């Protein structure tokens, strides 16, 4: 009997666990470890943040799901991984302070990001002055602060809103873009838009970059840059913007930034929602002699090393290759350990990095979206299934972000009759300039804005909640 331990219950971990159990059945053991027993449908937190979706609708309890599927669930946090002792094990800490050693034959690290608010002084809802929508408690706090600002506007007071990224290397620009549009839409709905000044700030080299190096789409007989579409949405809604910017510090009611050109600026705000940079979840890696081997297992930001070419990061952007990107997501030293979703360390950014004159790095980190996380979680599961069932010595399945495409639906207002969303399909996620002149296959890369996009977004919410619950025919819903 083989035992597979999965750390994390997000898109990557849950997809991996359900697929592993489906294929391996009762002969083998699948154990899932996570500090939270709820699955959180993170993409809909943009709606929670402006009060247009009830928080409960984005969550469900995983315990009954795992019970039904015969998966063992342990509600605790992995603190330590011992990859090369005779019995490889994970040290798990439970909420009552007790710890347990859980042995594994195969391990999937799908622990997602640590929200690194500390990277920018004053950033974040816990010890700082800005809000965030990356977790449910933070999205609920954001909603409460947003509604307070709305109340002030109802009394005739002007309010300044700033939305975007809170650090030069943050990711998830798409989520911030969704939030600013939903905020603008909701202010209109509540009849207070005229009292609001809304400003976007981000580290993207240009609007519409979204950390994937921007996108070119076919439109009305032309090839058009996504930058124009992103800008046109701000123009239409009267949103100002600051691009190519690193937020240096956030204070009560204001933030300071510097941009790639070295221009310094300050934005005043009554409400700010700023996405933090991500780091790896702090887990210790200890060898059989008790030595700390974290630097061998992880890149400095704490994400786990997989089969990527990490030396390529030192090369100039023009020399980056598709082969830099991982395909199998196994650790190069311990081939029975995998990282999936946000937890794996990308070799470098996708967008071109720039530096401010003072040397500050300003570049979006590569997004590993829900769809990419699901695909990678599934791929890793299939490799492990081959290793368990067919005795393969190492990972057999490949899925590179330079090969697979993604569907991104960017909500711009939640209403079944007046809402809208930008629907973007891109193929592949990481532009492949070796293969395609514009980096992507233009027959599969598509963009449009409209109400139908919102219907799709809404449909996907329920479709993926269904899949993540492992309900009837879940396996036929694509990752």
């Amino acid at each position: 009997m083989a035992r597979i331990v999965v750390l994390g219950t997000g898109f990557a971990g849950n997809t991996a666990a359900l697929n592993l159990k489906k294929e391996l059945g009762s002969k083998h053991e699948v154990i899932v470890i996570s500090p939270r027993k709820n699955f959180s449908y993170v993409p809909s937190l943009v709606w929670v943040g402006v009060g247009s979706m009830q928080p409960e609708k984005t969550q469900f309890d995983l315990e009954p799901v795992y019970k039904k599927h015969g998966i063992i669930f342990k509600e605790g946090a992995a603190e330590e991984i011992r990859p090369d002792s005779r019995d490889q094990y994970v040290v798990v800490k439970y909420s009552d302070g007790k710890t347990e050693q859980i042995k594994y034959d195969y391990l999937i690290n799908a622990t997602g990001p640590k929200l690194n608010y500390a990277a920018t002084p004053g950033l974040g809802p816990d010890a700082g002055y800005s809000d965030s929508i990356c977790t449910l408690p933070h999205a609920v706090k954001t909603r409460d602060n947003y509604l307070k600002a709305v109340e002030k506007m109802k009394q005739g007071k002007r309010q300044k809103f700033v939305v975007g990224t809170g650090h030069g290397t943050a990711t998830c620009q798409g989520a911030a873009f969704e939030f600013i549009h939903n905020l603008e839409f909701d202010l209109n709905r509540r009849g207070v838009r005229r009292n609001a000044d809304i400003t976007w700030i981000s580290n993207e080299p240009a609007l519409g970059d979204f950390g994937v190096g921007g996108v070119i789409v076919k439109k009305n007989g032309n090839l058009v840059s996504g930058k124009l579409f992103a800008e046109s949405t701000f123009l239409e809604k009267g949103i100002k913007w600051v691009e190519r910017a690193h937020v240096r510090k956030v204070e009560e009611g204001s933030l300071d930034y510097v941009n790639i050109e070295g221009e310094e600026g300050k934005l005043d705000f009554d409400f700010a929602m700023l996405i933090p940079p991500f780091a790896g979840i702090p887990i210790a890696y200890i060898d059989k002699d008790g030595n700390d081997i974290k630097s061998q297992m992880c890149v400095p930001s704490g994400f786990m090393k997989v089969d990527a070419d990490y030396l390529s990061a030192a090369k100039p952007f023009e020399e980056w290759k598709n082969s830099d990107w991982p395909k199998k997501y196994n650790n190069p030293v311990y081939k029975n350990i995998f990282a999936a979703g946000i937890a794996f360390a990308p070799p470098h950014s996708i967008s071109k990095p720039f530096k401010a004159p003072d040397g500050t790095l300003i570049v979006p980190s590569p997004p590993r979206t829900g769809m990419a996380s699901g695909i990678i979680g599934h791929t890793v599961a299939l490799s492990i299934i081959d290793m368990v069932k067919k005795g393969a010595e190492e990972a057999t399945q490949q899925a590179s972000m330079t090969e697979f495409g993604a569907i991104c639906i960017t909500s711009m207002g939640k209403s079944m009759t007046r809402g809208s969303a930008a629907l973007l399909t891109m193929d592949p996620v990481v532009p492949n300039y070796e293969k395609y002149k514009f980096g992507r296959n233009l027959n599969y890369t598509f963009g449009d804005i409209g109400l139908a996009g919102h219907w799709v977004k809404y449909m996907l919410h329920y479709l993926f909640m269904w899949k993540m619950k492992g309900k009837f025919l879940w396996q036929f819903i694509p990752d």
Partner: protein
Amino acid sequence: MEDKSVKDLTEYVPYSKEARSFMAPTKYTVFIRTFIPWQLVKFIYYNLKMLRVLLKGHGRFMDT
């Protein structure tokens, strides 16, 4: 505090840095984006577009 790195295209300023790559939806485009009969057609079209990307596969393949 306003400064020159804050871009604001709500007022069109000819020859400005912002006006160099200008695009904005017309009233018709804004209307059609929420015109339900047309959006129903688009909904079907979007699903076919997405299906095409999904049918192309995830780039996932066996390493032989």
